[in-house]
């Protein structure tokens, strides 16, 4: 298989795109040498991020790329949309908070699945979330 140096970019319009995004993430994670559990964590985090876009802010884009931070290798997942933005970031990061009647695992869950988590959101302009996981 060709080494995946180029980032993968999956546009999120419908629910099948969620599956495509997480499959792509799993492929990257596997190829980079992540173990089974971390592969599942990464794929699940992508699924949650892609679903947020699908539910609240479609269309958006999930980008998966290999990172090498001074020898620390890993994957960076970016979820970007031009949706309504998140009104109250602190509330959105609370366990159990949901506006969709879902399980509310959403963002705090993603944060726990990954090593690093950054979120930028502006009302009316959109949201950009970057989550990273490093090889141990």
């Amino acid at each position, binding site marked *: 298989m060709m080494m995946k140096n180029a980032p993968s970019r999956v546009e999120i319009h419908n*629910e*099948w795109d*969620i*599956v495509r995004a*997480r*499959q792509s993430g*799993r492929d990257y994670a596997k190829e980079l040498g992540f173990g*089974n*559990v971390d*592969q*599942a*964590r990464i*794929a*699940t985090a992508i*699924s*949650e991020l892609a*679903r947020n876009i699908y539910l609240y802010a479609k269309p958006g884009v999930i980008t998966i790329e290999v990172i090498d931070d001074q020898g620390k290798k890993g994957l960076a997942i970016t979820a970007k949309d031009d949706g309504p933005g998140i009104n109250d970031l602190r509330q959105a990061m609370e*366990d*159990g908070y949901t506006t969709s009647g*879902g*399980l*509310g*695992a*959403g963002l*705090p*869950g993603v944060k*726990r*699945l990954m090593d690093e988590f950054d979120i930028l959101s502006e009302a009316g302009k959109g949201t950009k979330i970057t989550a990273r996981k490093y090889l141990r």
Partner: protein
Amino acid sequence: MRIPILKLYNYLLTTIQVELDDQTAIQFQDDLLKKIHETGALGVVIDLTSVEIIDSYIAKILGDVVNMSELLGAKVVLTGIRPAVALTLVDLGIGLKGVPTALDLEQGLEKLRQELGE
């Protein structure tokens, strides 16, 4: 895509061997409830051995299936949850509390038989 549901005596058996997208999961929920209603099955085993990812949405659907089936009088056991999936669910903050589980199909059936006093 449809997930096949097999009837065996008083039980329904189903094994999920595809990547679960939302549509397939919802269709499965519908099909299973119809099948319980048609057959009067008392127990259901849903085997997840081949499932590599359960996100919060799919977890919610599975939890709902268990509750809905119980309303129809059928006990459900989830079997074969992979270690990686279990770890991920806990990270997500989803314990699937109150949902009966067993290691594999055989133990799942055994659990149902005990619960139903057979």
